[in-house]
């Protein structure tokens, strides 16, 4: 029992460190990546290749005064960044980084992640409402309807996958994808999964972008329309925590995609050993793609975004669900 407590504590510290470090260094990846997409150099002054830039940014944010603008609701205003960050960190608990590297191997892992993923929208809404700013409220209204619209296709594709794997335990889902790249859910060539999983993967990836408020669906910020969207009134570490929460959400999204479709910690070729390294490579490849998309595409309009979900993604994912169910029944 005592051992279990120590193990859990160690994992929690590890998770928080991982989330914070990732958030900090994803900013660096984002800036450096953006710079190279735009034929610039990017951060280079602080440390080699600007590697200490996140540290400098962090210090800058922390030394700033926690500003409470006139007319804000102090409790909501202060609690909102935490409400965005905490669910993201909690979701890390069930992610199996390696075969035995999960803080908690919960049977309902997938459900837990979806449950927590829905909470962070609330954080944005509370922050926007609390900051009594029209731009923020417009952004929050957008984010809410966007998240409702995109949660449905995301869940539908996840349900189809759960039907095929018949488990919600993330480690179990990864275990089933062992034995090489052709066993991954992405392109599974066996009769236990439906032939539509590549489409399911695309839907899942798109909804993941929308759920994490990333371009081209970054309605929460929409800097050319809504100044800084829901974060308009935030400064200093209030903004910093929001930012960390956003990036932690991206990591969760990428990790979940890796677990569900890309075989988690399984190696792509049967003769190579499986390890946590594979997980990280796949996860960061997805994160890189997300950054790449961010700096390539303009932003969609809001109603186009909703149309895409309600008129295209939801019907397709429903069809995917039915086909998968039929497929599993027949074979």
């Amino acid at each position, binding site marked *: 029992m005592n051992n279990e407590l120590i193990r859990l504590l160690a994992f929690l510290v590890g998770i928080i460190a991982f989330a914070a470090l990732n958030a900090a260094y994803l900013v660096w990846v984002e800036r450096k990546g*953006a710079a190279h*997409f*735009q*034929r*610039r150099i990017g951060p280079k002054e602080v440390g080699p290749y600007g590697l200490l830039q996140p540290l400098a940014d962090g210090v800058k944010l922390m030394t700033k005064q926690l500003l409470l603008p006139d007319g804000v609701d102090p409790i909501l205003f202060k609690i909102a960044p935490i409400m965005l960050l905490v669910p993201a960190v909690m979701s890390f608990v069930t992610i199996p980084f390696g075969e035995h590297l999960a803080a908690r191997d919960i049977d309902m892992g997938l459900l837990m992640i979806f449950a927590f993923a829905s909470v962070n929208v609330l954080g944005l809404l509370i922050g926007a409402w609390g900051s009594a700013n*029209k*731009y923020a409220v*417009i952004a929050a*209204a957008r984010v809410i309807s966007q998240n409702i619209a995109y949660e449905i296709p995301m869940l539908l594709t996840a349900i189809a996958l759960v039907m095929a794997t018949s488990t919600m335990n993330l480690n179990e889902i990864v275990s089933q994808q062992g034995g090489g790249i052709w066993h991954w859910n992405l392109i599974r060539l066996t009769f236990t999964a439906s032939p539509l999983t590549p489409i399911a993967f695309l839907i899942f990836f798109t909804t993941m972008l929308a759920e994490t408020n990333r*371009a*081209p669906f*970054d309605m929460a910020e*929409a*800097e*050319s*329309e809504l*100044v800084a969207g829901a974060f308009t009134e935030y400064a200093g570490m209030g903004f910093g925590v929001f930012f960390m929460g956003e990036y932690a959400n991206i990591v969760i999204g990428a990790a979940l995609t890796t677990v569900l479709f890309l075989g988690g910690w399984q190696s792509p070729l049967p003769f190579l050993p499986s390890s946590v390294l594979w997980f990280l490579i796949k996860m960061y490849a997805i994160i890189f793609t997300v950054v790449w998309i961010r*700096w*390539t*595409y*303009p*932003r*969609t*309009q*809001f*109603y*186009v975004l909703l149309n895409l979900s309600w008129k295209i993604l939801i019907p397709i994912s429903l069809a995917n669900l039915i086909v998968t169910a039929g497929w599993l029944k027949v074979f």
Partner: protein
Amino acid sequence: MSVDVLDKSLETFVLNLGPQHPATHGVLRVKLTMDGEYIVHAEPVLGYIHRMHEKMGENRTWAQFMPNMGRLDYLGALSYNHGYALAVERAEGIEVPERAEYIRCITVELNRIASHLLWFGAFVLDLGGFTPLLYAFDDREQILDLLESVTGARLTFCYFRFGGVYNDIDDAFITGTREFIKRLRSRMPMYHDLVTKNIIMIKRLKDIGPISQEMCRRYGATGPVLRGSGVCFDVRKHEPYSVYPEFNFDIPVYHECDSMARYMVRMDEMEQSMRIIEQGLDKLPDGPVMAAKAPKIIKPAKGDTYCAVEAARGSFGIRLVSDGTNTPYRIKLRSPTFSNLSLFSEACQGMLLPDALALMGTLDLVIPEIDR
């Protein structure tokens, strides 16, 4: 996608867009009355960068007013130089050497391309795509380097004089310009592949932000805004000035009246400007760049002069009233984006905020020129 703006039962709120807002490119402020994300009424508020240029003109000599021309539309300053120089030359009756007029047209067209490139980048930035801005700036930088080598300035040019230009162009400028045109021609397909044909761009621009011919006529819109509404009017062609009649170029006109049409007009205009520059370099005559008989002190005879040129944003008109002294009695400027902005209020009624900002982007506003 629209809302009935006359419906009295709407619950509206006022959204203050600017004067410091990422989409207004400067100190434009728009008071928006909104119903949710729909715009019920928009009221542009000006005056944040008013510098009394017209009044300034009355207090200095004719030549001293020339630098002011670079500070109206700082993105297409040479067109304004050109307009003022032509107006004063017309009033004073100064003959300009042919070589000088060719140099003027070449540099003005280079400046026009630079202005359109910056607009292209900034417009896509308005739509949330950051990267094209940096690519466009890369190309624009080449133009600024070229113009710097002859004019000595990179932004607020004051290059033209009454009777010519103050500095001749050299071989380095000519070869550099030819190389630049080759380079931009090779990059235009990339811009079209990455931006124009992008599905998100098409969704955001096609059939969005209609500005009818009739509305253009009512507000006196000119330039790409007018040509995107299907009216073929370009001062260079229809009220020719300088040596433009000697160039063979087309006027891009699109009849869709939407944001996409105005976008395409500007993209096509860059190609036409490149054609003018090439022909100008081919035909460039020898000779002086400054009229030998240009008077040192300008004192136009009593009377009125009007002169219009096609600037990057539309028709720029200048009316000079002289009382026969060495300072102007009155200078009245007609700047194109002032008219183009005034139609925004009517055009954006009932639109969604992001679409209205896309529409505002296609108007290509330069605030110091509206608010002079």
